[in-house]
């Protein structure tokens, strides 16, 4: 399709960027809905932690990064992988445990990797990957590079020693790392305020002489702008930042947890759903005249088709060969 050249910084260019953000969030939403369906029918096994409700966090932050920057995440990482451009077919195939999956069917939902996009995984131990992010940033500085590393984790990881050790070393050594806490208020079924003496995660930055920002995680633009500021502090200069991004998961902790469970009320979930980041951006774009109702519908149809194709691919893709069992235990 031929398109006119769009000048950067113009309203048209901003519209295109925003449409891209919306598409990326919609892709995650529709992907996760299909993953839930496949899980319910037993096609996806193990633990499966959905990202529905939190889409603006991955999409907004990744929009602020360069292709050669690094990302590392927890086990709730489908959203970041997709926002980073990992193909939905490879992600869905991994959820299905197929050989064509991002990790050849050996990692599953919690261990998505795409080194070609500097997406360094999918890690399953709460907080365990936060020191790895400090290490990646250490390597960047060691080599004199100007990339940054963004580390995603939930607010429950803040109670883990690894978080504090990693932040301290990042600050002492002035490393280009952004610690992005997705505060969705519950560590599994435990409300943060029940187990944390300090409930504003940003305050922890004081202990490590680190810049910090509190961000509305339902506003994709706010996330993007805050991440851009953190990137500016980190790139070249090596000043880490702690971002506390307030968000909410609309689904249970994992697929084995009911929608709202006994630890939160249905009313609370419904109230949060009124802040849906996708509805919010769609409304903004409609108001700005970037996208009308038909345009929005067309975008959704396009994204759904992409996800359907991913499901179809994953369903048909072969399992790993039996010989895969013992490969990749050790590197050559």
């Amino acid at each position, binding site marked *: 399709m031929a398109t006119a050249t769009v000048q950067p910084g113009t309203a048209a260019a901003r519209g295109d960027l925003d449409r891209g953000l919306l598409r990326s969030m919609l892709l995650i939403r529709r992907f996760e809905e299909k993953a839930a369906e496949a899980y319910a029918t037993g096609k996806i096994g193990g633990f499966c932690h959905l990202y529905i409700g939190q889409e603006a966090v991955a999409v907004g932050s990744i929009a602020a990064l360069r292709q050669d920057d690094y990302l590392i995440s927890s086990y709730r990482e489908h959203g970041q992988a997709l926002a980073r451009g990992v193909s939905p077919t490879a992600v869905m195939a991994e959820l299905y445990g197929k050989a064509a999956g*991002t990790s050849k*069917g050996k990692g599953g939902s919690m261990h998505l*990797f795409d*080194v070609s996009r500097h997406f360094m995984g999918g890690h399953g131990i709460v907080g365990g990957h936060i*020191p*790895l992010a400090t290490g990646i940033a250490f390597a960047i500085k060691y080599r004199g590079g100007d990339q940054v590393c963004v580390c995603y984790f939930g607010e429950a990881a803040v109670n883990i020693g690894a978080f504090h*050790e990693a932040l301290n070393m990042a600050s002492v050594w002035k490393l280009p790392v952004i610690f992005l806490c997705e505060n969705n208020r519950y560590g599994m079924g435990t409300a943060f305020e029940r187990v944390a003496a300090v409930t504003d995660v940003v305050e922890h930055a004081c202990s490590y002489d680190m810049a910090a920002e509190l961000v509305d995680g339902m506003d994709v633009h706010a996330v993007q702008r805050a991440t851009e500021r953190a990137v500016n502090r980190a790139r070249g200069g090596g000043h880490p930042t702690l971002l506390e991004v307030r968000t909410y998961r609309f689904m249970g902790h994992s697929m084995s947890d009911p929608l709202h469970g006994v630890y939160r009320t249905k009313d609370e979930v419904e109230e949060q759903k009124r802040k849906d980041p996708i509805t919010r951006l769609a409304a903004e774009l409609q108001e700005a005249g970037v996208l009308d109702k038909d345009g929005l519908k067309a975008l959704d149809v396009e994204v759904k088709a992409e996800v359907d194709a991913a499901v179809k691919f994953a369903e048909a893709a072969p399992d790993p060969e039996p010989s895969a069992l013992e490969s*990749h*235990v050790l*590197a050559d």
Partner: protein
Amino acid sequence: MPTLTYRDALNQALREEMQRDGDVFILGEEVGVYQGAYKVSRGLLEEFGARRVVDTPIAELGFAGVGVGAAMVGLRPVVEFMTWNFALLALDQIVNSAAKLHYMSGGQVSCPIVFRGPNGSALQLAAQHSQAWDAWLAHIPGLKVVAPATPADAKGLLKSAIRDNNPVIVLEGEMLYNTKGEVPDGEHLVPIGSADVKRSGTDVTLVCHSKTVALALKAAEHLAGEHGVSAEVVDLRTLRPLDEVTLLASVTRTNRCVVIEEGWRHAGIGAQVVDVIQREAFDSLDAPVARVTQADVPMPYNKLLERAAKPSVEKIVAATRHVLYLD
């Protein structure tokens, strides 16, 4: 050939590998300004600077993870634990990160990292500072585990560990740092996964590694002089992967075996060695395989109790006489 201490042989390996490859760096508590708690990194800060010899806070989990993260993107960290006792705090990074990244990423991520430090019993350091972690670490697929007994093997195995593209655990004998031996200059590599016959013999095989090699050699000397027994001493050197070929070649010739280790008996390294022997050399055995281990207790402080807890020459001689039916 120059004679060096075990400590200086390790130091030489670090220096040579850091000179050879700019991606190799050292990370740990007191490795720089203090020159290493056991002086293994002596002089390296002065030669390579603070960029490559990095003093860390006392945060084993954190700095082990920093090493793993750096290795994930291609650096070759050598992480020093002041002792392996403190590395328990870092086990999540060793086991759940370093050992598994290659597998769970479908081969995309490699983790070329060395975790090294003193291991095993020391002198009157009591329960928390005097214990052997060999079996714990050798249990994990995705790791390689070496435990050199001599200065030459210490240099050769550490150099091989640094060049390996996998996480390698280097268990240094805490009581071995001052021991001396001939060490080849320059390019001396001991392959990971190869055991070494430290003394040839015909009547019984003494299987050992790290500090127990010296005990086994002394026991073999005593057995030859006092009991007319010719004992072969097989130093495993690598605990994962185990060199079953060398082990079985010896046992199928001597038909008798004693396995010695500093660790506890229950689910120990010796249990694995015995499993290999009973599976692969059952028909060669003339007696059940005996084991000499630490007593099944936390290490006591009192000198006499401590001596009673550890493997000793006397215990090895007694076990050997037992498998030879000499008692």
